[in-house]
């Protein structure tokens, strides 16, 4: 895509289509894990995919808009501390975007490792640091409760993104033509 003012149009379209995907998967794609109050949220695998493909700006906006819309239309009111945490996940995973050349069809062992490193850092910061701190600061909820929730949500998301996110990226990279895959016929 041609770049203008630094940010390409596809970034904004990715936000426009990624956010409703986040909404729908957040509503239908979450599976109760058996533990109370914790779901396996497949929607974070999608957020990771969008962030890796379209960069940190798309990631932060899909997290922000997608989560706000999801909370608003299905639950009536956004829970801001977790909305901000989602946006942060998108932002940090998006920072990996430039280091992974997934558009060239390359997604091997090294890239998988790099992607997972970023997603673990992102989830740890978002769910173990930011979301609980905001819950305490805004809603003055009990410290041990919000950290317990954060640990469970963070762990569930790390596993979900690690497995499903990696699978999604692998599947996507297979649809791309590998760089240097053409051979000269003689």
């Amino acid at each position: 895509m041609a770049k203008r003012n630094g940010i390409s149009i596809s970034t904004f379209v990715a936000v426009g289509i990624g956010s409703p995907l986040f909404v729908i998967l957040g509503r239908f794609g979450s599976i109760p894990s058996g533990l109370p109050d914790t779901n396996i949220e497949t929607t974070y695998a999608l957020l990771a995919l969008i962030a890796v493909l379209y960069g940190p700006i798309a990631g932060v906006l899909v997290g922000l808009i997608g989560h706000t819309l999801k909370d608003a239309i299905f639950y009536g009111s956004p829970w801001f501390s977790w909305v901000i945490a989602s946006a942060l996940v998108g932002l940090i995973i998006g920072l990996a975007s430039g280091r992974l050349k997934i558009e060239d069809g390359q997604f091997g062992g090294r890239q998988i490792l790099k992607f997972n490193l970023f997603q673990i850092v992102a989830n740890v910061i978002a769910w173990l640091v930011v979301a609980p701190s905001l819950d305490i600061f805004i809603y003055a909820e009990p410290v041990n409760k919000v950290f317990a929730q954060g640990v469970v949500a963070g762990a569930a998301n790390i596993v979900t993104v690690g497995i499903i996110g990696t699978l999604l990226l692998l599947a996507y990279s297979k649809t791309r033509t590998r760089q240097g895959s053409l051979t000269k016929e003689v």
Partner: protein
Amino acid sequence: MKVQMLSYKRLDSPIHRLAGSTKLIFFALWSVVSMITYDTRSLLAMFLFSLIMFALSKVKFRDYSFVLYLILFFFLLNHIAIFLFSPHEGVKIYGTTHELFHIIGWYSVTLEQLFYQFNIMLKYLTVVPIALLFILTTDPSEFAASLNRIGVNYKISYAVALAMRYIPDIQRDYQNISFSAQARGIDTSRKEKLFKRLKNVVSILLPLTLSSVERIGVVSAAMELRGFGRHKRRTWYNAKSFTARDYAAFAVILIVMAVSITLTVSNGSRFYNPFV
């Protein structure tokens, strides 16, 4: 798979006639105020005021009743969790102990804890009517125009408009893929075991996301060809201009902010303490 979601319905009421940007600013500032303050008096006043506005808007109960049940259910879960994890949080905050009765171990019910949990509930309840009103009475396409008006970059505003417009489409895609998966015996309901179910959900996720990535390519090419983003500004078909009513709404939210901040400051703490 019929799922209810909140959506805009065209009605004529004083709330519906407000410009989208007014409602957005009102909702944002209202949320900020209710997040900052923990003063029971101003939270109660705000809650009552939001109920009056709700009544003014003429929205029908059946348009949002399902959300109400969900909210009440989450309230219940959250309050049980708070009590289980920290039955003496209220004592810690208010500094006194008025024990009502003892349950077991370190669990006992105190007036302070009840008051603290009442405040948490109130804090959340003050936002719910305004949030519901905002969603139920704002036309999505006018919403994009109003985001732009309050200073959000128009490309981001446009992305939000796209997002709202694509929710039904993506939901339909999801259902189509899910149905065709079910026809091939791929079950994603709770009857399946956790791991198998997860695997089956991934088999829906894959075509859905890959086709969406494709769609992103097509739509951005189309917008690129029509010269989207060429200029620094754009105009909006659905933009509404401000009227006296909008300025009145701004005045109200400014007064609410001023009063609740004054209360918090003069109180010396975020918490209103009836126990001392």
